[in-house]
């Protein structure tokens, strides 16, 4: 992971080979009305790397994550994930439903509030993407769904309904649902923030397992110890800018920027 502010990576290639590059973001901007939420974000994530995104509330972490799978449409900039590329520089924006959908299908996202589909049981939640979007036949989609549910430790709850599950179980189903699309990257937006403290561990264990298997991931998290131990890179955001980015241990243990230090000082309990 390298952070290169303001360099135009489309013209000036980084030393990374294209095949090693999984996420590339150049000059990303987003405003909501007068509020500039993302000011100029540049980001490169190599295949298989785990990035933890930290920063105070309102700094734009969720907006950045949602811009990466186009749930939120950037005002300007360039976003590439795997083979999918979208250029939002002026006059060059393709916003066709079909293209957006194809882009999103290639990125898995896990939300703070799980957002399971309440009118479907667990295995149907996991199958619906492959069946509807990838046009897989139901039988093989179900087999694959059960496989993924065993991976997150929930094969025995396949026929349960979401409301019968604990928060931790719901979030693990949501992870399986995202993995079922065979995405190039997984994005986690505070995946454990809505959970009872006792249930956080089981979800973090699944994320850690994905990291070990080489999944490229970006995690927005307030779990600083987890970020330090699992992520390769930590990015600290504030007011729509990347303030500091670097090796996870270095950023968490010896932040260079005063703003990062100040932010981390609120978390010392969590780092013990």
């Amino acid at each position: 992971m390298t952070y290169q502010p303001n360099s135009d990576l489309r013209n000036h290639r980084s030393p990374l080979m294209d095949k090693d590059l999984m996420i590339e973001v150049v000059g990303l901007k987003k405003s909501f009305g007068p509020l500039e939420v993302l000011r100029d974000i540049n980001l490169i994530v190599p295949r298989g790397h785990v990035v933890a995104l930290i920063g105070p509330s309102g700094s734009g972490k969720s907006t950045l994550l949602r811009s990466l799978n186009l749930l939120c449409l950037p005002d300007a900039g360039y976003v590439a994930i795997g083979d999918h590329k979208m250029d939002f520089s002026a006059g060059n924006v393709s916003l066709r439903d079909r293209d957006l959908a194809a882009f999103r299908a290639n990125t898995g996202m896990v939300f703070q509030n799980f957002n399971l589909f309440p009118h479907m049981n667990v295995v149907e939640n996991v199958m619906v993407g492959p069946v509807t979007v990838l046009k897989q036949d139901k039988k093989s989609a179900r087999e694959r769904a059960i496989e993924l549910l065993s991976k997150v430790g929930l094969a025995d709850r396949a026929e349960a309904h979401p409301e019968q599950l604990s928060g931790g179980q719901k979030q693990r189903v949501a992870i399986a649902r995202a993995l079922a699309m065979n995405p190039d990257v997984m994005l986690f937006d505070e995946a454990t923030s809505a959970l009872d403290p006792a249930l956080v561990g089981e979800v973090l264990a699944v994320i850690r397992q994905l990291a070990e298997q080489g999944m490229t991931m970006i995690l927005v998290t307030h779990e600083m110890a987890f970020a330090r131990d699992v992520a390769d890179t930590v990015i600290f955001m504030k007011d729509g800018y990347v303030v500091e980015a670097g090796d996870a241990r270095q950023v968490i243990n010896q932040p260079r920027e005063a703003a990062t230090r100040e932010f981390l000082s609120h978390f010392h309990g969590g780092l013990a």
Partner: protein
Amino acid sequence: MDYQWDFATLWQYRYLLLEGLAYTAGFTVLTVVSGVVVGTIFALARLSGLRVVTVPVMAVVELFRCTPVLVQLVWCYYALPMLTGVEISPPMAAFLTLTLYGAAFYSEIIRGGIVSIDIGQWDAGRAIGMRRGQLMGKIILPQALRRMVPPLVNQSVLQLKNTSLLSVLAVPDLLYQGQLVTSATYRPLETYTLIAAIYLAVLFPLTRTAHWLEDRNKA
């Protein structure tokens, strides 16, 4: 009061009344279907967020919600042909009016059902790459429909009641046939009591169903 009740006389008019019931039921089913179809189109138009469609649709909806059906019916039959120069039959005027009147209310129910679905459901569907139609069909509508069905049934009960207004245009619905029977038998008390009882017999099960659906949704 020593009125001599005589329901037996009405028996010979049973086919007339059945025909009336058939008209009432037929107009109800027809205008519930057309009303829901047009109402869905109105709802989707309003949800599109495009001002060129939302503004006219909102105007039509408010027009039909804020004027009495009877006025709409009479206006459509007597006044509209003067504007357009095209005569329309009473059943046609009745069909048009009840369709748009129903659509105005149905569209609000349908729109309300759709917007009541948590925004996170849209996010989750989009995040796995669903396209607009797939998201609506697989995620949003199945959940919204559960919430919409009780108010849709209630609105359809009103729609059936409103068909009784068709009698003013001489559409031979249940009430109109009752008027015919009354003038033939001079037995308004029995006839109109029977008419009311028939409406009750049809509508009571329907309203119970709506209640049952509501309770089931709450559970």
